[in-house]
């Protein structure tokens, strides 16, 4: 067994990513449980399995960067800075939710942390992202705009429209396609003629690449270099991240459209947490016990988040009249 190559990424960063992935995993598991315990209702789409991408990207960003996503975004919101308790409270419709209980699972927002939403219209967040990138250029900032979308979202007309504008006017938006192979119950290959989604960039002469979304380190290194060049050249980039979701499309989806074997293959052989954990052990950056400890910490934080949400009061009903228009 040849000795493992020395890690290019230093230990603290890797440990940080490992802890973050554990938190995201345990948090979403607890959200799923809370749903079955009927602590909240409506839609709920879990990000379990796609933590490697979320953490790899987040770790490569500055706090002043902007991020926007779709409805599968509880943990992207936490990664950007919203407290787990505030996300859980929002799920429970409580007043201490990050949107005072008026947004819900698909609509987590934080002005302070520049998380510009969870959004429920597939692809609808892309034009918003290009508008933020426009503002970045307008004010000569050197921030970047991270725009997540699903694989099936790439077939939305308004996504194409704004990719053209971003490429024509050099707007610093990083479009990240979370290609988890399915749009609800439809394998993306059944509704899309290209065999790789990064090819969509060819219609706009836009810089593009793909990355193994199941490896936090690979994502981190790749996105780190991308955003650094984007801060200078201001050009947009289309990144296809190959990833996978372990749970159904939403909590109420039986998932009959894919085999148990397929899911288990990812869980056993390509899990982002197991992968990074193994690397940490190989690099002697952590021991089994320490990894166990990080995971327990994560479970604890998730538990605290739920407790916080449980104790948070309901918002006053008459608050339904607030926030329609500002004066």
């Amino acid at each position, binding site marked *: 067994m040849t000795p493992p190559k020395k890690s290019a990424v230093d230990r603290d960063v890797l440990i940080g990513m490992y802890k973050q992935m554990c938190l995201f995993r345990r948090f979403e598991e607890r959200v799923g449980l809370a749903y079955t315990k009927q602590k*909240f*209702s*409506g*839609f709920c789409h879990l990000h379990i399995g796609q933590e490697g991408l979320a953490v790899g990207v987040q770790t490569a960003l500055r706090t002043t960067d902007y991020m926007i996503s779709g409805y599968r975004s509880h943990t992207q919101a936490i990664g950007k800075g919203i407290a787990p308790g505030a996300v859980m409270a929002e799920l429970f*419709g409580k007043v201490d939710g990050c*949107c005072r*209980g*008026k*947004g*819900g*699972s*698909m*609509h987590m927002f934080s002005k302070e942390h520049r998380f510009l939403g969870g*959004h*429920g*219209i*597939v*692809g*609808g967040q892309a034009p918003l992202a290009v508008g933020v990138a426009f503002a970045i250029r307008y004010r000569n900032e050197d921030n970047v705009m991270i725009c997540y979308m699903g694989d*099936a*979202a790439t*077939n*939305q*007309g308004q996504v194409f429209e704004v990719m053209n504008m971003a490429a024509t006017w050099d707007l610093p938006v990083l479009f990240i396609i979370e290609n988890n192979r399915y*749009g*609800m*119950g*439809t394998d993306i290959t*059944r*509704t*899309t003629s290209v065999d790789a989604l990064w090819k969509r960039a060819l219609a706009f002469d836009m810089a593009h690449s793909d990355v193994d979304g199941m490896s936090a380190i690979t994502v981190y290194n790749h996105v780190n270099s991308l955003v650094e060049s984007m801060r200078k050249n201001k050009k947009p980039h289309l990144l296809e991240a190959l990833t996978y979701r372990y749970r159904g499309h939403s909590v109420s989806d039986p998932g*009959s*459209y894919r085999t148990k074997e397929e899911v288990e293959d990812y869980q056993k052989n390509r899990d982002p947490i197991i992968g990074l954990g193994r690397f940490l052990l190989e690099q002697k950056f952590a021991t089994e016990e320490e990894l166990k400890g990080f995971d327990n910490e994560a479970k604890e934080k998730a538990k605290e988040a739920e407790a916080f949400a449980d104790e948070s009061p*309901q*918002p006053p*009903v008459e*608050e*339904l*009249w607030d926030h*329609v228009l500002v004066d």
Partner: protein
Amino acid sequence: MAVITFREALGQAIAEEMTRDANVFLMGEEVGLYNGAYKVSKGLLDQFGPKRVWDAPISEAGFAGLGVGAAMVGLRPIIEFMTWNFGIQAFDQIVNHAAKMLYMSGGQFNIPMVFRGPNGAAHMLGAQHSQAYESMITNIPGLIVATCSTPYDGKGLLKSAIRNNNPVLFLESEMMYGMKGEVPEEEYLIPLGKGDIKREGKDVTLIAWNKALHKAMEAAEALNEQGISAEVLDPRTLQPLDEDLIFESVRKTHRLVIIEESWSFGSVGAQISDRVHKECFDDLDAPVHRVCNEFVPMPYNEAQEERTMPSVDRIVKAVKDVLYIA
């Protein structure tokens, strides 16, 4: 008589019409392999095969326009929007193409097709997934807009909508898909443009449709216990409205309350109120009262959502107001 769910009744309507006319096909997200996001199209892919049941990419403008084009040359598409909240992306194809093709072409190209899907709020889905669109689409000439409050009405009206030679926008309801109701085995159709008195009454007329119809019926029961006899009228088709049935009922009761699970401004209810005041001005003992969604985007919070929507209590209160009783 068989008792089946709303989704089964709608599914039967589609299957019967696809059997009857080879030009009928179904296209929408998840309608085939997944058996439908809400299982309305369950079994249709197996029964009719992939040439007639198509799983579409998430491109509402695209596949709505595809339907209009196919209808121009003799096919009879059923285009499903997973919910009408996403149908708004196809408004250019619905409003600027489907609704105007016959007219612009001087009568050459009619558009025999149905756009269908659940409309209005379900439960805790938040602002972007809880809208009712009838107020916007009933404003447009060249479109027929129909809805349904029971499995029986659903099947009969959807069959008529599919056979109609104009674009019909058919509004269903997520929350009612599981509702059970009696549906005859033998074939039947319910004509478009005709309303239905769901409950006879003489003191006040309640007009409501889709899911709100059931709240009106509940309110009528509560009022009955207080000695108030409420007539409940379901217009079923919102464009064109069955004005005769409405005026006839109002001329009998002299008081009207309109209930809709949509915003009040320039809504179908506003239109009914304007027409009733105009044509039954001398028959009204009180102005038309309306019970609508509060004029706010839909909150996610359960209690706020409930307060935003019409409730039986608010309907009963409106009836008492229109009767000038405390």
